[in-house]
């Protein structure tokens, strides 16, 4: 068995007679980890002296697959990276590819992607908050959160046909335009979401048990947050005012900049991270409300003449240009012509800065598709946050960091 005790080196435990310390193996299959990660905790009674994370239990070679599949095919893999907000990953991936090839997507596509990205953010935060509450003993919050998530699934299902991994984006646009039902569903979501949000807030915000278990736990200072490369809600809860939606506006965030604010905290503890996530959900809700009412008309894909996007069925079957274009994009030796260059594009996803570093060698496949995974970077901070706390604080800190193993290990 490979579960050898990776006995942590404890030279830095000052002058302690280390005989009374003992080692606890936490994970890889444990209810509070939600996914597959392992911690080797060195304990003094119930106090954690040292935590050594051991990851890789879900390493599945995403980046190697990225070198094997073309830009459109890889979207199915990217989906499965942060699987509680898959659409956001797709949008970030194709943003980078479009940046590489130099495509400016249409206004309607921009707005649709914005709406989907924000829905993904809400669904991610809902699961994070719900699961964190579940780990701390509040099952009801989890059920409320999941009920709201089902509404988002409905939207995504009627948009793309798959409720979980829609694989909806394509180079230069989307798989298909949305139907009017989707707009109605989004409006319905916009109408009902504040109540769910208020319910969860009422359950948790002033819940004494929840506050006792999260306030002052897992504190990350602002300097440490910057020094350890944290981004997203984890960094913002520590007071780092950095949000790519405002700092490097992409999609429709420039036009919608007035609709939302960046939510920040000061304390950097689990409670602050929870509050930042709750706040961000409301801001996302405002973005969706503004975007769905200002949804531009027009095509969702860039022009057929650009020879970059997959033509729709009508164009493929009824015009020679469409047929040729379809053929060109699906022949393994044709596909896209890319510059022999490399580019980094990043989006502010629910967990933080999700970036892709794509190296292209002129062909239709990425030569290298490096991901900057926020979960990976946030989990590296975990030992620092947990030291000196109790075992029962481990689920609280893990829940507040929102570690997604598929993104962690890729």
């Amino acid at each position, binding site marked *: 068995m*490979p579960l050898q005790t990776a006995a942590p080196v404890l030279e830095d435990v000052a002058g302690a007679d280390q005989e009374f310390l003992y080692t606890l193996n936490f994970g890889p299959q444990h209810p509070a980890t939600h996914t597959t990660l392992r911690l080797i905790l060195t304990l003094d009674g119930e106090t954690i002296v040292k935590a050594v994370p051991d*990851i*890789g239990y879900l*390493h599945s*070679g995403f*980046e*190697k*697959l990225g*070198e*094997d599949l073309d830009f459109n095919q890889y979207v199915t893999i990217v989906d499965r990276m942060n699987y509680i907000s898959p659409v956001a990953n797709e949008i970030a991936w194709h943003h980078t590819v479009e*940046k*590489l090839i*130099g495509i400016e997507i249409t206004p309607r596509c921009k707005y649709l992607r914005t709406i989907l990205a924000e829905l993904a953010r809400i669904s991610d935060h809902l699961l994070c908050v719900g699961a964190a509450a579940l780990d701390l003993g509040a099952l009801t919050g989890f059920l409320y959160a999941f009920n709201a998530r089902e509404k988002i699934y409905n939207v995504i299902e009627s948009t793309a046909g798959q409720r979980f991994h829609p694989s909806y984006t394509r180079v230069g646009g989307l798989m298909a335009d949305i139907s009017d039902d989707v707009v109605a569903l989004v409006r319905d979501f916009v109408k009902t979401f504040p109540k769910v949000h208020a319910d969860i807030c009422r359950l948790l915000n002033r819940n004494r048990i929840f506050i006792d278990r999260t306030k002052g736990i897992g504190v990350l200072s602002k300097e*440490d947050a*910057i*020094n*350890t*490369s*944290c*981004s997203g809600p984890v960094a913002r809860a520590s007071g*780092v005012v*950095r949000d790519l939606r405002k*700092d*490097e506006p992409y999609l429709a965030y420039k036009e919608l900049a007035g609709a939302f604010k960046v939510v920040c905290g000061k304390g950097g503890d689990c409670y602050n991270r929870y509050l930042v996530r709750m706040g961000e959900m409301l801001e996302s809700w405002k973005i969706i409300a503004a975007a769905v009412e200002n949804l531009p008309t027009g095509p969702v894909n860039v022009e057929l003449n650009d020879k970059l996007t997959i033509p729709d069925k009508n164009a493929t079957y009824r015009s020679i240009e469409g047929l040729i274009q379809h053929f060109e994009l699906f022949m393994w030796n044709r596909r896209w012509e890319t*510059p*022999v*260059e*490399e*580019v*980094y594009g*990043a989006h502010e996803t629910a967990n933080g*800065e999700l*970036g892709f*570093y794509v*190296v292209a*060698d*002129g062909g239709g496949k990425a*030569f*290298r598709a*490096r991901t*900057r995974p926020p979960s*990976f*970077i946030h*989990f*590296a*901070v975990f030992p*620092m946050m947990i030291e000196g706390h109790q075992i029962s604080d481990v689920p609280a800190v893990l829940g507040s960091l929102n570690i997604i193993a598929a993104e962690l*290990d*890729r």
Partner: protein
Amino acid sequence: MPYLDTLNAKFAGAFATSAFRDNQRVVLSAEKAFTVLFPLLKCLKEECGFDFLAELGGIDYLHYPHATDRFCVVYGLTNTTTGERVWVKAFANDPDPELPSVVALWKGADWMEREVYDMYGVRFPGHPDPRRILMPSEYTGHPLRKDYPLRGYGERHNFPTVTRADS
């Protein structure tokens, strides 16, 4: 770009620059990278305000058009006050690819460097905990190298089978 003046004053001739879209790059070739990288990143961090290591990843340029050096580690730095980004590319070559560790500058580099070591076999002298991170410790290959097959060498099936009667 003001940081370029600072870098030119200190490391004239040691680096090249390039740009594509909005990515501004500082490129260190394999001969210079090992000695120049750490002071250059330190200068960028402490004098030019690039205090945030946004990204650290490896690339294997085997069979890449016009590539001269094989391994590359890309450091993406961000200035958290101005939002400016700069990319530092440091190359390393076979048989013993090595680059200095930057954990002393950014604690966040710790796991990212371990990942580069795991996936490419680029070693980082000075790293506090240079172990594999994603693959099992007894694994011998470096899977993201270009000469490593996508389906591996059959490691994924090398496990005993449990039958119904075993339990």
